């Protein structure tokens, strides 16, 4: 390969990679997630991050950072705690990749300086290079196996699939290149010309016999069988000219067997200058990978360790608004889509029940990103696809119980709880506040009137029994004798001393509306939406009516029914 071409390509890909890294990381200071992020400028965020980094590095927290780097970044401790298989895969990939990069790709800078007399064709480097390559390969295979087992056949982003294919190609071309060079007589002759000054096949016959038998070179004329005595005659010359740089390649436990397999083809491959092509492909694939890495989701190899270290410094709540804003934007890049959060999510059963995967953290993160970057702009029109997507995202945001399990489980230290809070703020600012808020933007009567003309709506006497079994069954409230016990024990009514914003209906009036088949009138009522679910009414009801459970059902019905007519007459 021409050094000029190599250097140009390397420089170009390094430049692209650097630009990409710069562009991607600049988003950490540009992207605004959460209402409090709007108050700080990008330069203010850069300054806050630099200040934060400096104060963390030059304090006792530096030790904590070092610990986090060793245990969480290098050893991937958090992943080890949650998912052993994925941890193994990642450890293999991280270790294999890093060692290949240092010892192989950057050999002139690293291996040659660290190990006196380093040659890639000497033991144990032959073995080690293969070993590292296999680590990487097994790691990738384990991850793909994990995806397949989790039922994730499709890649959400094609770039990710292309990048994985590229990585596979680099590995395969590397092994093939090494294998071909082991078997190649052409390479042999090139080396003999250089170090012995001869490429005469007859003159070098003893050396060739030795190399054919112990080094795997596939000479056409030596296929029939090699006389061991002839090979022995070659040892002196071998010792003088070759041994300093070559040990038998059998320890390259992948490439050597491949070389033996390729032996019958070696002649034709040599004739086609396969070594040169494979080298080009291998090197340029590496460069392509280098240049494209920042533009794929594998950018997380940069962002995730940073996130882990940021998390080690302290919680979001202890950061400045500027620092928090940057951390949120970083989270979008640092997320490795591992799905640990989804598996731990408290509302996962609800997500299945409602058929809305938007309730799960991984999807919520995407929606948060889309919301922040303006890709999810709700129009407020019924039936508009973006509006529906935004409504589903809002469902996810507001049905979250803030249990914090996703945050504590995240292997890369994302403060997801803080992100959800910020995302809810953004949704509210975009006209999609929590159901309790948008429902209460209109009085109960206005909602009931809005429901009236809807031809697609069921009558209240016929609510969805699977969703609201108590409301659907008259027996659950028909025993109400209007004794007011529920109202008497209700702390929400007791504390409602403000006429304007106070309770509009009392619990027993809600029960009465149900008895009269006028439940629609209750859907948007403050009683239904301000209920504290303390269960006093239900526990005290002399008739054993499940008052609180019924109020909860009414909320669910309201989200479904009022949500369907929300856009009518302007967004509430």
């Amino acid at each position, binding site marked *: 390969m021409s050094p000029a071409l190599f250097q140009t390509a390397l420089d170009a890909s390094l430049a692209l990679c650097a630009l990409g890294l710069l562009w991607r990381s600049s988003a950490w200071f540009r992207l605004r997630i959460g209402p409090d992020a709007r108050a700080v400028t990008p330069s203010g965020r850069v300054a806050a991050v630099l200040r934060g980094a400096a104060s963390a590095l030059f304090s006792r927290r530096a030790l904590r950072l070092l610990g986090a780097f060793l245990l969480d970044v290098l050893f991937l401790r958090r992943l080890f705690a949650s998912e052993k298989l994925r941890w193994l895969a990642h450890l293999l990939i991280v270790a294999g990749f890093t060692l290949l990069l240092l010892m192989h790709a950057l050999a002139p800078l690293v291996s040659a300086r660290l190990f006196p007399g380093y040659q890639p064709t000497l033991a144990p480097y032959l073995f080690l290079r293969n070993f590292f390559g296999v680590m990487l390969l097994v790691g990738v295979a384990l991850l793909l196996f994990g995806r397949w087992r989790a039922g994730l056949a499709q890649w959400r982003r094609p770039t990710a699939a292309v990048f994985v294919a590229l990585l596979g190609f680099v590995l395969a071309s590397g092994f093939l290149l090494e294998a071909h060079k082991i078997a190649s007589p052409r390479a042999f002759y090139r080396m003999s010309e250089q170090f012995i000054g001869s490429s005469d096949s007859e003159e070098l016959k003893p050396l060739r016999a030795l190399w054919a038998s112990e080094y795997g070179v596939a000479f056409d004329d030596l296929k029939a069988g090699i006389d061991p005595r002839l090979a022995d005659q070659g040892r002196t010359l071998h010792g003088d000219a070759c041994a300093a740089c070559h040990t038998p390649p059998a320890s390259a436990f992948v490439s050597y067997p491949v070389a033996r397999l390729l032996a019958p083809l070696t002649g034709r491959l040599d004739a086609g200058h396969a070594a040169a092509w494979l080298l080009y492909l291998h090197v340029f694939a590496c460069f392509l990978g280098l240049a494209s890495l920042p533009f794929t989701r594998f950018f997380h190899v940069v962002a995730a360790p940073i996130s882990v270290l940021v998390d080690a410094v302290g919680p979001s709540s202890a950061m400045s608004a500027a620092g928090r804003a940057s951390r949120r934007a970083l989270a979008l890049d640092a997320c490795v889509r591992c799905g640990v959060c989804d598996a731990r999510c408290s509302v996962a059963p609800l997500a299945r029940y409602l058929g809305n995967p938007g309730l799960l953290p991984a999807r919520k993160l995407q929606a948060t990103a889309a919301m922040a970057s303006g890709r999810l702009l709700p129009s407020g029109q019924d039936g508009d696809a973006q509006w529906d997507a935004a409504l589903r995202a809002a469902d996810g945001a507001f049905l979250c119980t803030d249990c914090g399990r996703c945050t504590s489980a995240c292997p890369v230290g994302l403060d997801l709880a803080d992100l959800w809070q910020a995302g809810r703020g953004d949704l509210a600012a975009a006209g999609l506040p929590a159901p309790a808020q948008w429902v209460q933007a209109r009085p109960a009567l206005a909602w009931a009137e809005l429901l009236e003309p809807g031809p697609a709506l069921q009558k209240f006497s016929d609510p969805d029994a699977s969703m609201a079994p108590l409301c659907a069954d008259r027996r659950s409230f028909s025993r109400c004798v209007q*004794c*007011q*016990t529920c*109202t*008497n*024990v209700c702390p929400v*009514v*007791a504390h*409602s*001393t*403000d*006429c304007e914003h*106070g309770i509009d209906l*009392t619990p027993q009036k809600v029960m009465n509306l149900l008895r009269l088949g006028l439940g629609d009138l209750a859907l948007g009522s403050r009683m239904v939406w301000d209920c504290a679910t303390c269960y006093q009414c239900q*526990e*005290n*009801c*002399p*008739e*054993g009516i*499940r008052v609180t*459970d019924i109020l909860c059902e009414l909320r669910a019905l309201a989200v479904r029914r009022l949500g369907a007519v929300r856009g009518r007459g302007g967004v509430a």
Partner: protein
Amino acid sequence: MTGARHDRYDVAVIGAGMAGMAAALFAAERGLSCIQIGNGGGILFASGLLDLLGVHPVAERRLWPSPYAALEALAREQPAHPLARIDTVSIRRAFEAFVAALGAAGLAYAPLGEQNRKVLTAIGTIKTTYGVPLSMVAGVAALDVRPPCLLVDFRGLREFSARQIAATLAQSWPGLRHQRIEFPGYEAVPELYAAHLARALEARVTRERTIALVQPLLGGVQAVGFPAVLGLARSREVHAAFEAELGVPVFEIPTMPTSVPGLRLLGALEAAVSARGVQRRHQATVRALAFDRDAGTATLTLECVPGGERLLARAVVLATGRYAGRGLTADRGGVSESILGLPVHQPDSRAAWHQHDFLDPSGHAINRAGLRTDEAWRPLDAGGKPAWPQLFAVGSILADQDWMRSKCGSGLAIATAWAAMAQVASQLRETAAG
């Protein structure tokens, strides 16, 4: 007696009304391990006044100054009445124990004594009762002497009108004045609820503001009456503060059910039985009840939200009440017992249920329907024998009484629970010894 194991009890009390609560209380006081199943919400309809026996005979609407004299007359003239089957010494002890337990749980009653007392109601009528909460007892004296007196009510509290009471009594009690005031902190609220006011008055600041509003209205009255909203769990403290600050006797008048005294009574009874180690399943109902004659145990299958539970008991006390408590179910064919289908003593045909006149003072035959028992309070089967040796019945589910017209609801509940629990205890002792 055996200690309570996880799912095995000496006594299972089904029902948590007055009779169920009394049964659970007395079981625990006799050292029996007890589980109580059922919702106590029915007690919320109570006024806090404990009737023993006010009227006898029902047809004559004769009021008795002494409940014990009334009980003696009842025993002579209506020997099938459940209260007629219990000696007055036991009834007295039952009431003393019940009231002592309430007092220990923070709901103080005036000493019981020998006499019935007359109490003002929320509509200005006069009710004859026996046990009176301490917070109401000054009203008994006031009603007796009828001195200059002030009745206060609150704007927005719909179920209580001082003006109506004063108007009703105007002729016989000329010194009775009335005044409506704003309840502090709720000035902007159109509709008030008694329990909210009661809870609010437990805060000193609200109490002081209310007293400050009443003080200028006193004008030499010798007693002040309020709707029963003077505190909920801490009614004693609130009532005492009102009396101390106003400097005159202060009394509460029970409001229409469901009322604050009902909430106090329920709270005190729940606290009393729980404090005595009674296990409670207050959101559960009994889905099935089966007896094992050989083992001498009953198996109760409970239904609750969510799931269910099974437990074993050596004795079962049925305190499920009548129709409101759903111990009895009435339909066109007749009245049936809800859990076991025990034979219900009732008129032969539907036509015989009611008198011709709905307001007939002697009441209706259907009002005396219920379970008949042997002398040990065990409900009878169709053949007139105890249906199950381990099954007992107490309270209003019992036949041959019309507690509403006799004004004997609490008496019936407390006395039969006491008497039946004495039988349960001695039976359990015998089987343990045998």
